């Protein structure tokens, strides 16, 4: 269970990007987070694995308080959090297998990592997962030779190699064409069920969010203003989430404050 309470993130001395945010993710559900650009979706996801340092508040994953970890402990906690990126973030000049195995870097010895002598069970798991998503025949191909959809599959397998307790996906389909985008969303949903894994997906495509996820969280300028099953997301809720702009919201708040 992921429990976020009173999370605040402020860049520099400006307005906070996340304001006293509370969110609980339970079980093996797929949750999508929607909201216009600048609403803080990406920041929220990156606070969970501490790619972004939260300003205050608490993030608790299965009993581990993530906000206070440092060094070795932080790395140990990060191993349990998989992440899939919009730009795939693969190492282009490495093979698909090396990219996939880089999800195990937190577990294996430095020597094994450098000499590419991966443990047998890791290799077996890698082939199983690659077979599952349909990229096993690319194991020895360089990552930059693959198409967008295939590259994102490598990204997904890399995250799953970590044997994560939660999977974060930061706009995983925004760089893909509509058909590939649906395939990846379907894949994330199916894998969540198969691996009993909670998944959080930042997404701009509301249709896909409704179709592929169990719960929709709507963010507007640092706050959660909608949190329900997809069927409850009506036009009125959509308008509230997407109307205006972060800049206009900021101006409103200043007016209210003064």
């Amino acid at each position: 269970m992921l429990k976020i309470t009173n999370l605040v993130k402020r860049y520099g001395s400006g307005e906070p990007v996340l304001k006293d945010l509370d969110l609980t993710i339970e079980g093996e559900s797929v949750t999508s987070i929607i909201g216009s650009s600048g609403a803080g979706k990406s920041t929220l996801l990156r606070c969970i694995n501490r790619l972004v340092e939260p300003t205050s508040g608490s993030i608790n994953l299965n009993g581990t308080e993530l906000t206070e970890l440092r060094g070795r402990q932080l790395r140990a906690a990060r191993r349990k959090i998989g992440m899939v990126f919009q730009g795939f973030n693969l190492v282009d000049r490495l093979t698909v297998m090396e990219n996939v195995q880089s999800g195990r870097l937190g577990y294996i010895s430095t020597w094994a990592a450098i000499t590419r002598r991966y443990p047998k069970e890791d290799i077996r798991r890698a082939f199983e997962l690659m077979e599952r998503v349909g990229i096993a025949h690319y194991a020895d191909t360089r990552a930059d030779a693959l198409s967008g959809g295939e590259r994102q599959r490598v990204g997904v397998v890399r995250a799953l190699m970590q044997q994560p307790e939660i999977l974060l996906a930061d706009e995983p389909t925004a760089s893909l064409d509509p058909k590939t985008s649906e395939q990846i969303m379907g894949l994330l949903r199916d894998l969540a069920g198969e691996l009993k894994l909670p998944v959080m997906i930042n997404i701009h495509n509301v249709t896909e969010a409704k179709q592929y996820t169990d719960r929709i969280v709507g963010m507007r300028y640092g706050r959660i203003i909608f949190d329900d099953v997809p069927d409850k997301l009506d036009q009125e809720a959509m308008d509230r989430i997407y109307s205006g702009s972060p800049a206009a919201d900021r101006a409103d708040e200043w007016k209210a404050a003064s």
Partner: protein
Amino acid sequence: MTLQELGRDDWTRFTPRQRMMRFAVFALCAAAIAWALTSIEVIWAWVWDAPIQMGDLFGRMVPPDPTNLGVILRVLWETVNIATIATALAVVIALPVAYLSAQNTTPNRATLWLGRFILVSSRSINTIIWALLFVAIFGPGIVAGIVAIMFRSIGFVGKLLGEAIEEIDKRPVEALEATGASRFKVIAYAIVPQVMPTFWAVAILRWDINLRESTVLGLVGAGGIGIILQGAIDTFNWPEAATVLLAILALVIIGEIVSVFLRRRIL
């Protein structure tokens, strides 16, 4: 266009004031050059004499004397070895220096400045000056030459490699940090693969440069073909000097061919 400008048929690129300024700057530059020319002592008779001297020297060099060719080629091989060993050592030492001098990998401010200090001090001193220094330390010979070329190369390789590290795509680095990999493993998996092409290109380029630099080391007694050239010139043995020059020319061309070949194979 306003109405006043209708029917205008005079136009100049510069206003009179601008034209005066341009002329003044030009006059100033000419004056500076004239002053520089008059302040150095040129013995003009020797300058006008140069074509005759050149013809004379050429006459003495032809035909080149190949009697010492065996020795020359052996020493030339030694020169190649100086360049190769020095490049290999420099590349290895430049790796940690590049790591320190790249903003995105250096551990802290102090190490950044340490890295940059090493690069600048290595680069700002010419190979010949390094050679003079190391001949004093190690005595004349090949060791001084190797160390001199190595010292100059560390700055060159380290600087270019450090810049390559700063220009990498940061997204894979972020992704691997998110998997819980240690700093060292992130470097090995996300940074090293990205700078490998630059690494080989810079190493080959520097080897090519070092080949040429090592031919002059002998002039200050730091080993290599330069010693024989110096000896030939000192004893007015111009035919042999010609052979040495031709041998150096051949070496540089071969080096160029080899480095083009390597670059094509590796990259």
